[in-house]
């Protein structure tokens, strides 16, 4: 008897919001669900990381809106910094080869992602050096939202591993294999060479500058240079100018004196290739090829710096890293010159070279680089490289 009246009462209670719910189907236009982004970087010296926690989640978990006015200001977040750090530390447990690690927060920043503002904790892990086996247990926000997901990105040895933490899978473990004690100088030397060879924009820029290297412009036509020496000097000037210029900006950027956003740099680099190739068709800089190399070399240096930063800077070994990478870039670039120059010298007298290779080569470079420029400026992908 009592049971029936209970059900009756409940069904009345539910009926009150029947119309609410019946309509609350998947038709609802959802916001994104709650996510946090955890990036870990394992290097020879240890483990560093960055954790993006949504302010809305932190508000529900520990309270950020101190004055309760419905919005979270920077001052409010700062005043709760201790609590944010303590929350993060208590919700992420790291075990390196069985040793407990602890998060040491170095910086609290803010980031705006597509679904709102996030607190960003930059941290180092104390308690172990680079482990062979890393076990992680993540339990942020699961108690207030079982639909929360922790999205993990783990970088180690140039590899990226992704993982998702959920209430049913709060733990993940990763094997790094045996860490080979490597010399950062040679590692970054190799990376430098590889960056030039795999970065088609740098190769095409160099080619655009080198193509007219075995020619001289006289009376609005291209003439082959008389002797090898002239060609060498010309190419040497271009290569040196490029080297000096990008070394300057690479160092400035890596040492933290100048910072440009990578998309801006990448777009400008693509533009530099277009201009360098265009200069071969319609000379705008006269015989000042080396000046072009210098001016735009400054830009390419910023590109190298971003690439080096992506590889992960070795703290404490910055000079060695920078020097190794830069030398690698030069070596990679010289190798290209060494292949190109003899070839070009041997065919420089052919009308085919002056008419066809120079013009069509430059035009082709322009087309490719213009496409890159569009891709980078508008942020879409057309070319596979």
């Amino acid at each position, binding site marked *: 008897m009592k049971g029936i009246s209970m*059900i*009756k009462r*409940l069904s009345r*209670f*539910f*009926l009150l*919001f029947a*119309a*609410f*719910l*019946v*309509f*609350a*189907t*998947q*038709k*609802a*236009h*959802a*916001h*994104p*669900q709650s996510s946090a982004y955890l990036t870990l970087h394992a290097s020879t010296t240890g483990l560093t990381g960055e954790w993006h926690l949504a*302010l*809305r*989640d932190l508000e*529900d978990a520990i309270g950020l*809106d101190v004055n*309760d006015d*419905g*919005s*979270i*200001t*920077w001052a409010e977040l700062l005043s709760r910094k201790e609590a944010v750090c303590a929350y993060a530390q208590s919700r992420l447990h790291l075990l390196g080869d069985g040793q407990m690690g602890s998060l040491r927060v170095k*910086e609290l920043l*803010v*980031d*705006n*992602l*597509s*679904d*709102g*503002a996030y607190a960003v904790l*930059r941290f180092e892990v104390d308690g172990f050096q680079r482990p062979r086996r890393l076990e992680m247990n993540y339990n942020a926000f699961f108690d*207030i939202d*079982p*639909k*929360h997901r922790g999205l993990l990105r783990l970088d180690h040895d140039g590899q990226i591993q992704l993982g*998702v933490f959920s209430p049913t899978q709060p733990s993940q473990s990763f094997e790094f294999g045996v860490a080979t004690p490597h010399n950062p100088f040679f590692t970054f030397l190799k990376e430098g060479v590889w960056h030039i060879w795999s970065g088609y924009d740098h190769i095409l820029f160099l080619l655009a500058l080198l193509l007219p290297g075995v020619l001289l412009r006289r009376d609005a036509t291209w003439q082959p240079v008389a002797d090898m020496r002239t060609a060498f000097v010309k190419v040497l000037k271009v290569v040196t100018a490029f080297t000096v210029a990008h070394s300057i900006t690479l160092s400035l950027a890596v040492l933290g004196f100048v910072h440009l956003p990578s*998309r801006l740099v990448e*777009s*400008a680099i693509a*533009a530099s290739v277009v*201009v360098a190739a265009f200069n071969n068709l319609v000379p705008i800089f006269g015989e*000042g090829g080396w*000046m072009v190399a210098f*001016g*735009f070399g400054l830009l390419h240096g910023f590109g190298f710096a971003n690439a080096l930063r992506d590889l992960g800077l070795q703290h404490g070994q910055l000079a060695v890293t920078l020097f190794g990478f830069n030398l690698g870039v030069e070596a990679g670039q010289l190798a290209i010159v060494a292949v190109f120059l003899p070839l070009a010298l041997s065919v420089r007298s052919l009308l085919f070279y002056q008419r066809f290779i120079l013009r069509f080569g430059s035009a082709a470079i322009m087309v490719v680089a213009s496409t890159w420029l569009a891709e*980078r*400026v508008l*942020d879409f992908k057309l070319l596979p490289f």
Partner: protein
Amino acid sequence: MTLCAFRKIVVKITFLLPVVFPATLLQAEPYLPKDGGQVLETLRSTAFDPVEHEIRALRARLTAEPGNLTLACEFARRCIERSRSQADPRYLGRAQAALVPWWDIPAPPIEVLVLRATIKQSQHDFTNALADLSLAVRLAPRNAQVWLTRATILTVLGDYAEARKACLPLAQLAPGPIALTAVASVTSLNGEAEGSCALLQRSLEGNTPASPDEKIWSLTVLAEALERLGRVSEAEADFKKALALGQRDPYLLGAYADLLLDQGRAQEAAELLKNESRADGLLLRLAFAESAMSLRPVSCDAHIAILKARYEAGHLRGDFVHQREEARFDLHLLGQSSQALRLAETNWQVQHEPADLRILMESALAAGDRAAAQPALDFIRKNRLEDVELAKLARQLNPK
């Protein structure tokens, strides 16, 4: 001469900067705010929000007594309502959290069962939601909410025969307008569109008391049915009546925006949605509207980028809840028809609403894969679904 050449280079570089700079504005990088007063996040539109206040008070009480069934259900109910009015699934997650002690029990108390089914349904877990409801029907056959939720899910799945059956008990268990709207939302898709509209119109003209939310629901079902029949101006009038009731209803906004977009009234759609950048579905329609405007506003690209980032974040999480919306995004904003078709086909495996049919047919047409639209054509014929837009697409797919 050298100086001149150098200057030219500098001029060239500075000339290029303004061209590439706007693209970098969207680039997200963590930063250190300079001003303590800078607002980082807005939690609600007004400083004091009574609903939010109540939710927080309930949460505080629940934290003290996590196993309290009444409190947990009340909190979950509030959160579910909130998730709907704000179109924010974070609240669904919060609701689920409150029900954790009962979440994995096969036969929890009936009130938990209904809430659990509602949450699962909202997360597109239709199979488990229906399983919960089947149990609930046996435990509480006179609970109107159970039958309503069941009818809704079956309608979304396109199982109209079963949905009609689920509506039958409502005639006795629910107030007239609710029962009628529930039935009409099925029959208007199932060969009786004209009759359903007439019924709804009569019910709305009658003086049966109904809450604003119930009225909005009836008016929206009616407007959508009229729109499918091609009676656009009547549909618009009903949408406007629903909007005039002054309740925030993201679904209504989206449905009306769709009508405006179909009528080529992008400017009005953009005006309607200009402040709705938080909910994905409304932001998507705002981006549609902006990209269709003759003077494409600058915000359009930013909105497209935000949507793209959100879908990507969803993929990372392993969420496949918004495949229909993402297919529309791919087809109409990115022009990627084959990718859109792939999503529309996977979405079709799960749900069968008119919008699901439409994106399947549109992307099949765009991708030049007519055979892919065959399931949609069969569905329309089998269920006698009346919809002028779908009929137009069907003619394009089967020109005879």
